[in-house]
């Protein structure tokens, strides 16, 4: 099964970053697909938490919204949303949070609020939701996002959620003690933060992608690591599981 889409490549790569010991705060869309793929392949003991209050959920189909019944029915436990944000997220119990963005800068700061001016937006986006505190309370953050010049920008229009701020020690200056965005997984490559300055550096390139593709899809000056890996391709097994998951999901959502 050598055929796979860039989105599948991205999803499988994100899934592989997770392990059995992880407690993940899962968002809707790609993060949900990646986390459940991990659960259905190499990390059956992974704990998936959705902000609707479901702890240790094992959905058979992906939820369309963050609080679908499937999540609760398959969860170990469902708690009030107040408790989810207070005891579990703020309480520091989550090892990994997944975030995406409309705009992202090279320090992993993200914008999901507005394009343009806050008071006179060109495009009004949904807003932060759980992200501002997910970004600071989870042990580390995996950013997952398709690359484009429009999305990967030098300066984001609004800092919805903190990454490394202005870089270096800036993140800690806000009283934040968690690690921050430790990897950025795109449809083209994997980037990781520079050990000191914290800007993202390309450390692994997906098969069939070249450096110019990445540069052309990035609004900041791309830096490449001295040694760059090639991201392993999705296995047949992973692709099969992922496609089955999506097929079940589509069938279920159409039926509803």
């Amino acid at each position, binding site marked *: 099964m050598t055929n796979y889409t860039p989105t599948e490549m991205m999803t499988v790569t994100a899934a592989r970053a997770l392990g059995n010991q992880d407690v993940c705060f899962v968002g809707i869309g790609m993060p949900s697909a990646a986390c459940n793929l991990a659960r259905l392949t190499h990390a059956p003991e992974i704990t998936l938490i959705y902000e*609707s209050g479901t702890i240790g959920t094992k959905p058979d189909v992906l939820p*369309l919204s*963050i609080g679908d019944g499937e999540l*609760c029915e398959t969860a170990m436990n469902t708690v009030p949303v*107040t408790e989810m944000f*207070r005891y579990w997220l703020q309480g520091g119990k989550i090892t990994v949070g997944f975030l995406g963005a409309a705009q992202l800068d090279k320090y992993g700061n993200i914008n999901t609020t507005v394009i343009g001016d806050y008071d006179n937006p060109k495009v009004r986006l949904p807003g932060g*939701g759980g992200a*501002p*505190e997910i970004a600071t309370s989870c042990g580390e953050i995996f950013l997952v996002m398709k690359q484009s010049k429009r999305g990967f920008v030098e300066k984001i229009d609004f800092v919805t959620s903190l990454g490394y701020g202005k870089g270096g020690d800036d993140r800690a200056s806000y009283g934040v003690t968690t690690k921050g965005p430790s990897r950025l997984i795109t449809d083209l490559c994997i980037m990781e933060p520079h050990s000191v300055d914290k800007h993202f550096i390309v450390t692994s390139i997906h098969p069939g992608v070249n450096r110019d593709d990445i540069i052309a899809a990035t609004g900041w000056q791309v830096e490449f690591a001295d040694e760059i890996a090639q991201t392993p391709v999705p296995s047949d097994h992973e692709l099969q599981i992922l496609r089955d998951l999506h097929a079940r999901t589509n069938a279920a959502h159409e039926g509803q």
Partner: protein
Amino acid sequence: MVAQFMSLKNAVATCVQDGDVIAMEGFTHLIPHAAGHEIIRQGKRDLTLIRMTPDVIYDQLIGAGCAKKLVFSWGGNPGVGSLHRLRDALENGWPRKLEIEEHSHAAMANAYDAGAAGLPCAVFKGYRGAELPRVNPNIKFIKCPFTGESLAAVPAIRPDVTVVHAQKANKKGDVLFEGIVGVQKEAVLAAKKSIITVEEIVDDFADIPFNAVMLPNWAISTIVHVPGGAHPSYAQGYYKRDNAFYKAWDNIARDRDSFKDWIDQHVMNGGPEDFATRLKMHNAKAEA
């Protein structure tokens, strides 16, 4: 002071006044859509609408011109895309200009908690390095008097009326929530008045667990029996989420005229009894 059973029309007419601060909650689950329609039908105006996720229910209220202000933390149609009526109000001021007070989920959840707890504000570890505090004067920072750590503070949410949907009431008016319970209990306890629509009214709650999520009748103003009243949201144990409707809403709401037609047809010329019917159609389709 004990919960009164009444019709949805009476409950909304009695509890909701123009200009009120209203919270309608339900986190994906148990969203009180029937009550939202009744508020539109009664032409309530100048409402401040509070809700963590102002999805389709508030897209309808905003598009229908009921809202003066929105307090929220995530405004989208989950898994589908934008709320077109919300965006039209924010980007173009249609049908009227909409003020917003924007928070994060953590802030809203803590603010409901503080409201239920009788506190004037919620204190939490939030908004660190985030830009919302620049544009929202209702986000401040205080210092822990023991450690000096900076903590975010937001005002408690204390709605005039909270509207939620639940699975069951018993005949005394105690209410039971099961499954994803969101912030509903907090929102009711934080409010001056409450309207709770329920799927079912039972004689008593036999054999429910000791630690169920419940509200006693003396903490509720009004209870309304509206089977299917959460549709297109869902009621665990009763019916599933109508995901197809949420997807269809994207097209309905994209255009002002098709939105108005939909509201005329399904809200202005409809009633709470339609929800049971809609549910039957949805269930029939799901089984087909």
